[in-house]
């Protein structure tokens, strides 16, 4: 007995009360429990799939989807495959996400700055905006905007702004560009990318020289000029080779007996409502983030900068804003993510985003595989945003 007890003690502590033993026991037990739960869950699903003859696997991806998609930004026909339909759906979500993020950031910064204005009316109006829009469910706001879009007059009696903007119950038509040929368009877009990269390189080099030598080098001006010059040369060159400008402007014009609009770029009603709702909702959160960020920079910072002789704009650009950014960026990234995830509400107002199309797909294809796919896609999207955000965050840290 005594030997057994001695072998079960460590420096006088019984084994079952030893910290290391308890820790490892907790880890092993919780690990086994979770693994068992996951295995149980998926093996049950696997059994159910076999017993109830539920289709499974990813073979469906090569089949034809055979269902129309409302608005799509990539060319799409009903005879395209499921795989391609996924790509189209993902593009739809991505475009809402990117456009929404840009617009919401602009509006959010505007309202956040207005909230801090010393002007009483401006400050109170933006407070009212923030308190209202972030406290009402996004779904209610989306339904409201969708109703407003549906209640607009039909195409023939729609509103026309300066012969360029057409607003009616089928959506919003704005001037766009149309590519003369795919090869020429891609060639010029490639050159444009090179132009931007060259501009950034030039800017960095000149800015570095300015800091090193103190001689005025105009990095912003020269950088922009580089981009414009390379872009223009590319435009002319591509035009000379392909016999016409790579892009031509496309102005919407009413046409025909029913006043149908030809040309331009039409944003469907569902997408207009979705963007309006998402942008106004997210902007309210971004405004609070911007305000908190700017207020987090101590007053002494801007006072000291003023005392050193910086102008009002210079204080903002070189002292307040860089410090505020460090506080602003992490929550801002999570708002961008929220906007992207919230775009999955699009189905409720008839825009075909990833979740909505996946939901429709489950009627003709294995639901298990589809859900696994969209889960992976959303997780990948989230991680990409986080990665970009973290890289940027690292770049602006001191």
């Amino acid at each position, binding site marked *: 007995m005594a030997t057994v007890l001695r072998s079960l003690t460590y420096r006088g502590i019984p084994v079952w009360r030893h910290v290391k033993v308890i820790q490892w026991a907790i880890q092993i037990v919780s690990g086994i429990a979770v693994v068992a739960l996951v295995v149980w869950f998926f093996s049950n699903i696997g059994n*159910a799939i076999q017993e109830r003859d539920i289709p499974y696997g990813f073979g469906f991806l090569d089949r034809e989807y055979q269902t129309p998609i409302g608005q799509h930004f990539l060319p799409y026909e009903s005879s395209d495959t499921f795989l391609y339909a996924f790509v189209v759906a993902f593009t739809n979500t991505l475009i809402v996400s990117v456009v929404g993020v840009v617009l919401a950031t602009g509006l959010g910064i505007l309202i956040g700055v207005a909230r801090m204005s010393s002007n009483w*009316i401006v400050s109170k*109006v933006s407070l009212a905006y923030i308190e209202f829009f972030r*406290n009402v469910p996004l779904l209610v706001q989306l*339904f409201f905007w969708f109703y407003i879009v549906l*209640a607009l007059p039909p195409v023939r009696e729609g509103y026309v702004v300066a012969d360029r903007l057409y607003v009616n119950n089928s959506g919003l038509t704005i001037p766009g560009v149309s590519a003369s040929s795919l090869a020429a368009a891609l060639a010029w877009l490639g050159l444009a990318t090179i132009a931007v990269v060259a501009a950034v390189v030039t800017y960095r080099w000149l800015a570095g020289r300015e800091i090193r030598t103190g001689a005025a080098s105009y990095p912003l001006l020269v950088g922009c000029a580089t981009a414009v010059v390379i872009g223009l040369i590319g435009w002319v060159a591509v035009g000379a080779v392909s016999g016409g400008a790579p892009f031509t402007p496309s102005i919407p014009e009413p046409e025909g007996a029913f006043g149908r609009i030809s040309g331009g770029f039409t944003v469907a009603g569902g997408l207009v409502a979705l963007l309006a709702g998402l942008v106004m909702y997210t902007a309210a959160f971004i405004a609070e983030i911007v305000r908190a960020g700017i207020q987090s920079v101590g007053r002494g910072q801007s006072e000291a900068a003023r005392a050193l002789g910086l102008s009002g704009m210079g204080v903002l650009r070189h002292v307040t804003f860089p410090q505020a950014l460090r506080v602003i960026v992490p929550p801002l990234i999570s708002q961008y993510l929220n906007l992207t995830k919230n775009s*999955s509400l699009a189905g409720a107002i008839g825009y075909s985003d990833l979740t909505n199309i996946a939901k429709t797909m489950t009627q003709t294809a294995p639901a298990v595989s589809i859900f696994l796919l969209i889960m992976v896609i*959303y*997780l990948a999207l*989230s991680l990409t945003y986080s990665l970009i955000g973290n890289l940027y965050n690292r770049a602006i840290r001191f």
Partner: protein
Amino acid sequence: MAAKFETDFGQVLPPPRSQQGVTGWVRANLLSTWYNGVLTVMSAAVLGAALWVGVRWLIFDSDWTVIGTLGGQLVIGQYNIESACPGQNCFWRPQVSLLLVTALLGMAWRVAGGGLTKRIAIGVAVAVSAFALLPYSMERMGMDVRLLLLANLLVLGVGWAIGRYTPLGTARWATVSAVGVFVVIVLLLRGVPGIPGLEPVSVIYWGGLMLNLLLAVAGITLSLPIGVALALGRRSRLPVVKVLCITFIEIFRGVPLITLLLMSQVLVPLAFPEDFPQNSLFRAAVVITLFSSAYMAENIRGGLQALDPGQAEAARALGLPGWQTMFLISLPQAIRNVIPAIVGQFISLFKDTSLVYIIGVLDVVEFGRAFIQGNTEYLASAKELYIFLALVFWVFTYGMSYVSRRIEQHLGVGER
């Protein structure tokens, strides 16, 4: 001469006229610089125009009959329709649930000793009983319904008296009663087989604001402890626990709630035998709670990270064991520091309860939308309906953020 100087310096002169009263306020807040003046004129013009249009619409063009037509259905959804509870009137069950909540509020008023709780309790009871005076006909809204609504005032007093004259009037017993009341309400609404008058009502008929509130209360109560556990797990030194918690948090934060809800309806039933009793609403409640606790965990982790490590070190130096250090020293301070974020998450959970439309139950938003879709003569009233729904949600969410600010003031956050 010296005496005169003394009086001059000793006198406290009022600030100049231009810096006080209405003139001073206008100068400081509206006309401090020339561009501020321009901004004032422009924003006042825009605001005035917007108000003019809005008020004109409100008085002359708006038509709120759709709210009156929906009436109590906005609160209970389809709970009282014939196929939900055949051959009987089930309206009393949500109403008794409401009475239980009011009694609880009365008890909380007594336990908290007045102040904000008192105002909330009285406000809720008065507002609810005021619905008894709605100008509906007696066929539409019976005397029994009205009396049960008015009874809220009485029950508030009963709850207060329970707190005052029985040994139940302590914070601990009030918490126990709150949990008990929630269980009783769920049983009451769900029904108990075999008891006459309490025939089961399938959860697919639960709906209206009642459903949003039930989901929100269940989610809020459970997501905080689960979130604390996940946050502690993520900060744990045990690698297995840490990896499990991180995986859970990142999966639930990376996928939209609506996708998770859809999956819970399609995938989860497959994992159970076909004859296993399935409850779509329960699954939705679990998903909403887990989704919210993943976000909660990150908020609490933020609070823990911001805490001065000296706090925990001092506690350990005083001889407190690890778990006491965590639960008596670190966590209370961490949670206190992130109250705004936690309440923000509660608000977001309450707003997210409107997403249950995806599983086919009619919460207050979906009920209104489905009604408009089914009765096209009300199509033009959709904007009034959505504005009304927005205001209903706003009252609750703004109330929550107001209470959180008061709690923060009470705890002196940012003052110590």
